[in-house]
């Protein structure tokens, strides 16, 4: 996955993501595609979650998946998850769950709970940083005011080296793939460098849905695992999603 939260020159926050899923799960030799990735595409849906006839939050997800990977609470915050691979991975959390150690939360359910119940960027950030999880994850959170954007790197029990937008230091965007931000990405899977190159070329005054979609359409940020692209603008309550394809030549991940 690749998630980006960026602030334009007017202090407006734009949040976008490519959802990549299905690595090593059945390569279709004929169509040069991942089988699960292709099967997920018809399941992509935008959902308006409503209570008392009012929107509580909006999300892009997969039909049949009750948790959330991408969502936005209009005028409050936007949130995406990127997978964090670790030997201390989710299977250990599942085993603990089966052994009746059930004080941790399932990752997608925590995201949904935060989208449903948190009322501000700060509250969302606190819940995502402090709640014990079954699996490691990267949470990318955007707000509706200048400087409100952060990457929360989660181990199962703690938050590691949070990184925030900082305009004074020239950090007007945050770009997260599937690697810790303080380490170099795997050289075989470097979407961070081309993504940042395109963001740097775009320049802060030009960031918009249009230019962020361009960044998320550049290979290998766009790759054979990319299922959908979502763009969100919290201040306007706007969420757009598109099912993607990556014609050859295209990286398998």
């Amino acid at each position, binding site marked *: 996955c690749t998630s980006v939260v960026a602030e334009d020159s007017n202090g407006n926050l734009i949040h976008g993501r490519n959802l990549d899923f299905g690595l090593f799960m*059945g390569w279709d030799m004929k169509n040069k595609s991942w089988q*699960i990735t292709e*099967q*997920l*595409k018809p*399941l*992509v*849906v*935008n*959902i*308006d*979650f*409503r*209570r008392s006839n009012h929107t509580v939050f909006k999300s892009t997800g*997969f039909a*049949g*998946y*009750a*948790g959330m*990977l991408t969502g936005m609470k209009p005028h409050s915050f936007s949130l995406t998850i990127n*997978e*964090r*691979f*670790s*030997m201390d*991975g*989710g*299977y250990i*959390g*599942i085993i603990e*769950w*089966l052994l009746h150690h059930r004080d941790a939360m*399932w*990752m*997608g*359910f925590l995201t949904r709970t935060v989208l449903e119940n948190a009322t501000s960027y700060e509250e969302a950030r606190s819940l995502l940083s402090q709640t014990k999880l079954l*699996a490691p*994850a990267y949470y990318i959170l955007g707000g509706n005011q200048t400087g409100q954007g952060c990457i929360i790197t989660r181990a199962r029990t703690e938050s590691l080296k949070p990184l925030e937008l900082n305009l004074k230091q020239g950090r007007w965007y945050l770009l997260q793939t599937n690697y810790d931000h303080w380490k170099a990405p795997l*050289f075989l899977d470097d979407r961070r*460098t*081309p993504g940042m190159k395109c963001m740097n070329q775009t320049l802060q005054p030009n960031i918009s849905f*249009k*230019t962020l*979609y*361009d*960044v998320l359409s*550049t*290979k*290998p940020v*766009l790759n054979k695992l990319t299922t*959908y692209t979502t763009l969100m603008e919290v201040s306007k309550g706007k969420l757009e*999603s*598109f*099912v*993607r*394809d*990556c*014609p050859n*030549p295209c990286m*398998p991940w």
Partner: protein
Amino acid sequence: STQYVPPYTEECRTGMYPPQGPTFKGAVTWYTVDLDLPPSKRWSALMSEKKDDIANMIKVIKDIADAFVPSGKLIDFVDKVLPLIVDTLPYPYDEELKGIASASGVPLGEIALFNLFYEVFTV
């Protein structure tokens, strides 16, 4: 073929929006989930519409599982054990998963597997 050699990158794209062309496979449809409904009913309308698509996806997962464990024991495990996990999930997710299984006609264990995919694949 050299283009597949990592790290393959291209020049930064421009003019891709509004989405069109070969990298755009379609717009995403909007649905409403009413949180005032009982959890078991919230997903009924959406799942009725998408039941064929989710059945196709589950079939591919089963085929891949069968390729790894040809005896079919892996899917047996999913169908027998994972429904028991659903009862341990916090409310309202336990009820929602049962509602999704009921509306789609897909066995509860396989719906549970789909919902636990992320945790399983972080290793």
